[in-house]
């Protein structure tokens, strides 16, 4: 099930740091019900492109539109509330809060309850249940009361994903979700991303280095190289194309 109209578009999106162009006029549209993998060598601008979409960075030129509406002027919190959800590459948690509290903060943001001052946090039972459900989906339910900083690296990655689930976004942005995970932990996350993708109205963007993961999940691959979009299309074709063989896989052109 693939929607016809793109939900998310970038138009000539560019960001310069001094003389260096990190993302160079990238125009791309993402349709609901699809999973687009963004690949490219280190330093190609994949995470920077993500930062421009989710609002952590402001574009030098170009714009981002969501549901046909220009959101370039919105801050990161504003874009999150419009439905752009982001999981980070470097684990980015609330280290001294518990696992459950980490997820509950996301649930609470989604429910719009951040400004409630006179009710006790623990009394919002529906939020707790929702948070517990998200932890259950990433197989962290039994660790809910641990302090986030004490989790293993793999579990912290899972928590990162649980926080994204709790936000219930329209656009799911995963930045190398399985990096640093042990082999037996990876399937839980991949299965989860697969399930999200099955929902017709959700759009998934995935930065990933592992080609087998990309092959099994992606409906489409775009390739960034030195900040430019150099290839875009069906996974099989893109991976086979000479430009990817050279730019990404490092195979010298014959």
């Amino acid at each position, binding site marked *: 099930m693939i929607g016809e109209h793109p939900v998310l578009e970038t138009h000539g999106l560019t960001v310069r740091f001094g003389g260096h162009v990190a993302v160079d006029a990238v125009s791309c549209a993402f349709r609901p019900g699809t999973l687009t993998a963004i690949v490219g060598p280190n330093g190609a601008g994949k995470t920077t492109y993500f930062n421009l979409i*989710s609002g*952590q960075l402001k574009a030098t030129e170009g714009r981002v539109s969501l549901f046909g509406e220009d959101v370039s002027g919105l*801050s*990161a*919190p*504003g874009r*999150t*509330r419009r439905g752009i959800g*982001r999981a*980070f590459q470097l684990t*980015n*948690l*609330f*280290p*001294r*809060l*518990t696992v*459950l*509290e980490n997820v*509950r*903060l*996301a649930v*609470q*943001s*989604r429910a719009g*309850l*951040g*400004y*409630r*001052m*006179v*009710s*006790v*946090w*623990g*009394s*919002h039972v529906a939020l707790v249940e929702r948070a517990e459900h998200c932890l259950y989906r990433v197989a962290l339910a039994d660790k*809910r*009361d641990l302090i986030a900083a004490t989790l293993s690296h793999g579990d912290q990655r899972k928590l990162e994903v649980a*926080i994204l689930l709790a*936000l219930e976004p329209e656009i799911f942005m995963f930045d190398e979700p399985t990096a640093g995970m042990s082999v037996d932990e990876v399937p839980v996350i991949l299965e989860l991303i697969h399930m999200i993708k099955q929902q017709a109205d959700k759009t998934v963007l995935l930065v990933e280095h592992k080609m087998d993961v990309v092959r099994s999940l992606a409906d489409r691959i775009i390739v960034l190289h030195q900040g430019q979009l150099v290839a875009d299309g069906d996974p099989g074709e893109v991976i086979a194309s000479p430009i990817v063989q050279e730019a990404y896989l490092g195979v010298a052109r014959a």
Partner: protein
Amino acid sequence: MLGTVLSGDYPRSRLLTAILIAILAGLALAPFVFPGTRSLNVAAKILIFIVLVASYDLLLGYTGIVSFAHTMFFGIGGYGIGIAAAKLGPTWGSLALGGGIALVLAVALAFCIGLLSLRVKTIFFAMITLAVASFFLILASQLSWLTGGEDGLNYKLPGLLLPGTRLVEAPVLGVEITGRLVSYYIVFLAALALFLLLLRVVNSPFGKVLLSIRENEFRAEALGYRTVVYRTIANCLAAATAAAAGILYALWLRYTGPDTTLSFNIMIDILLMVVIGGMGTMYGAVLGATIFVLAQNYLQDLMKLASGAAQGIPLLPNLLHPDRWLLWLGVLFIVCVYYFPLGIVGRLRQKTSRPN
């Protein structure tokens, strides 16, 4: 019931619970158990500083905001009452007007400082608050016609609050029921209410967002929280509470001056109390304020006794001389920071595992 009053935030340590109950009982019964003028002054000061320190902890411990303008808001409350009572006369109406204006001014000022400067890095915010607070201190000592300058303001209060007023003819439990007693219980109830209110705020959904900003502001924004707005609200809440504490202090002392409200010495005392009690726990404010104010007032007496007892031993009487009390307070502080980096409450809670 107790869970509602404490907002589900129990002391979570038996020893801490016992200490808190002892402090509460001591403060509640102070006029009957410790009837002297001096001890009642100490008890009232503890109550007021519990509120002041708790409101500062809302900023420092819960939100991660370093502000040096807290005594300014404390002073605004004090001068609100002082100026109103001295210029408009000792009526309830003028007190309400002065207190009301003080609260509004404190919140408005906190709002402006917040919006202008909470976007910048912690250290710059601290510097800006320091500058504004210095400005206020100078302003208060220069505008002598209004504030009484360095001497401050002495004023009368409505009869009900004056020590000379006797409400009941015969003493109750050996204690005269005077306006002083009424004042004390007004301070006690107001401090208790403000403390429980702050405890509720930090345990509310809003309070958890503050914690998340302290932990990882970048991530809090990525979750959709406008952190600048949250920090500004926290700043306003802390300012209003500090002003309320200033109002109570002015009502208790019937005097407002730079040394009792705006001075940077008080700012440092507040910092010490937060750190000794434990940052990021409201109960820490109770312990920090109680221990510090007691030490401030009774350490010298204790040392006089110790110095006398050590007569004849070389060096020791000199070290224990009452004039050296600040030295020992400093030693106490260093020991505290060194051995209890999480404060006393943090240390007590560490022993028990964290139930949820």
